């Protein structure tokens, strides 16, 4: 299982790969990932690679990712090429019409990629007083709700509960549930 996680510096991408890693290890699987620290974190484009299984290198080859988790619409679009044929994307979008661009639609169709878009900022504004730092938990929940990947919502909840700082545990779990409910059963 190969993930690409993209967004902007400061959006909490590292926490997402920590959650994915925690689950994999509790399943007895091997993990390997590559993170961005330093200059690249100052609000600029950030990309994390994360691989579960018997891999040697932490980097995902373009066209080989199973799942793209995107915290930012533009970063998501810029990195769709990482997805393999039949892969899936969870995308936080702020201007959903962009995803109607005919070129994007034909790219997704050609590669048979399922793109699950959610208005993350709107959800967090309405349901969590605009605290956008919970985007990472929201996206993780959405991934389970959309049925993309192999993780169950219970596994994600358990890992988030374990890894989130005590002060924000409840809020993180709420965001996971909001993301899950956005797609589950739809």
């Amino acid at each position: 299982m190969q993930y690409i996680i993209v967004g902007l510096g400061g959006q909490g991408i590292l926490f997402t790969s920590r959650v994915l890693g925690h689950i994999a290890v509790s399943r007895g699987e091997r993990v390997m990932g590559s993170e961005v620290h330093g200059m690249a974190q100052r609000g600029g484009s950030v990309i994390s690679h994360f691989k579960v299984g018997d891999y040697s290198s932490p980097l995902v080859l373009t066209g080989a990712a199973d799942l793209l988790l995107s915290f930012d619409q533009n970063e998501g679009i810029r990195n769709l090429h990482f997805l393999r044929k039949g892969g899936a994307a969870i995308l936080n979008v702020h201007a959903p019409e962009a995803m109607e661009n005919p070129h994007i639609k034909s790219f997704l169709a050609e590669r048979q990629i399922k793109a699950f878009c959610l208005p993350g900022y709107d959800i967090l504004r309405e349901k969590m007083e605009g605290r956008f730092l919970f985007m990472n938990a929201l996206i993780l929940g959405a991934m389970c709700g959309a049925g993309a990947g192999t993780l169950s919502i219970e596994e994600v909840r358990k890992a988030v509960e374990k890894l989130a700082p005590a002060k924000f545990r409840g809020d993180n779990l709420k965001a996971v549930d909001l993301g899950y409910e956005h797609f589950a059963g739809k």
Partner: protein
Amino acid sequence: MGNKVILLGNEAIARGIVEAGCDVAVAYPGTPSSEILPAVAKYADELGTRTAVEWAVNEKVAFEVAATASFTGKRTCAIMKQVGLNVAADPLMSVAHFDLAGGFLIVSADDPGPHSSQTEQDSRYFAMFAKVPCFDPASAQEAKDMVFDAFDLSEKYHMPVMLRPAVRVDHCRQDVETGEVRDLARKADFKKDIRRWVCLPAHVKINHPQLNAKLDSVREDFETAFGRYNFEIPATGKARIGIIASGVSFSIVMDLLKEWKREDVAILKIGTPHPLPVKMVEDFMARHDNLLVLEETYPVIEMQLPNRTKLKGRWNGFVPRAGELLPEVIRDLILKALGEPVPDEGVPELKAAIEEMKVTPKPPMLCPGCPHRASFFAMRKALPTGIYPSDIGCYTLGVNQRDVDTTIDMGASLTSASGFYLAYKTDGKDQPVVATIGDSTFFHMGILGLANAVYNRHAFVLAILDNSITAMTGGQSNPNVGEKLRQGDEGRRIEIEPVVRGCGVSFVKVAEPYDTADSAEVFKEAWEHAKANREPAVVILRHPCMLLRQKQARVKVRVNPDKCIGCKYCTNFFNCPGLPFDEGAKKARIDERFCVQCGVCIQVCPHGAIEAVEGEEA
């Protein structure tokens, strides 16, 4: 007992350092090495070792402190990023000749790409230059394992040994085996010996040949006794290519071959690129006609081979001479070397969409609310015709507001200001020059430039952007903060003002960056003083880094669309993620996703279009 945990590569290295019984670990932060030392402190606390763990003021200091501690027979290490090793080059070249007592490990983290550096130089070259052995890990686990071997090798030959992790090892996250601490119970026991510890030319005449002999022996060891790092993976079928690979490039090749299920590729993995086990490589070369060398970033393996004409590598331009060897690059190189078609990666539809929607990578910016942005704004307002040399830190991002004209390396803001001063002075011209430097960088290498400028009477303004932290690398302490890493350790804070005055500066004023009108006045006053008195004048702009999340007044702002004329003054000269320009409406707007309500932008708009939202002040 072995226990698997997920660690960052840098944490794995730190764990190795503590487990290997290292007594003194000293570093200066720098991406991608910064997480190593805090992790050393964390493991030392957890495992209850006596390890001394310290941030030094710079890498030269770190190197000398750690190297000298090893003269007593203890295990020590100095940790830095690749450009930090440039700063420590002087002691490196010298200490390489010493007949050391305790194990001395140098960790120098490289940044192919580069992702967060001013060069993508290869520390292995420095190892070759200084004649010290170098390990080049391909994974976090291997990096940890190599720490033990590096210490052992250092003690076997009484010489410094380098571990060179590249960024993809430093910042990879992987399941790593942890173990117990080797309690070496070493006591400091410095044995005075002038021949050994004083680098007189007469001693070099003995030590240099001795160093050469040590290197020959290490090379023999690498040929025979380090099979866990240097090994061959023969092709399962008939080999059509032999790949010599080191570091993460090796790991990438392994993943590609697994996916391809190819049987015609043989690999020679090299984990000790200096001194190169030449016999091993030549033996591999003799058995393969089609040979490819993959290493980052300089041709260190290639350079050590007496005959490389058979190789597809950097010497003949087959392998790119710059940039990171990403999986796509390596895939294409292997296919090209095999004479097979390279897959058309073209995603024309996606490219067309990205072009149509003008989706571009977002460059790093100063954080919303960052005091540096306000300081830069005031600087330009006060001295718009100035030349602005700057330095290494978050504030290099002031380039986004056109307030950084030059950056060379740590501390060069001051020395560049001196250079500009002299160049214009010889024309008889008073050119305003404002150097900007952060508090940590000032202590790293700024003080010397300041002393030089006072002594030589160089007229310019030095703005010390004091956010009380080493921010760019993740918030480490420094002399201006005074905190130390290990539990129970207490440092002493050094204030900037007395240091500056002690260097002979007579004009020292502190300003609050958020008050741009007042700090602009201080900038003007400072330049007038500098010009009149032929000496540097210092302005300290003091406001805590936003990453410290200290409570401050919040001012909710809005852009009044009736007053905004779309001149882009705010985006060009203030450049805040919370204040983007809406190309559709041709007006600035507040992006609530990023705005932290610092309220500084109210002072920025020349048309008064940015307003406080009344009744919303908290």
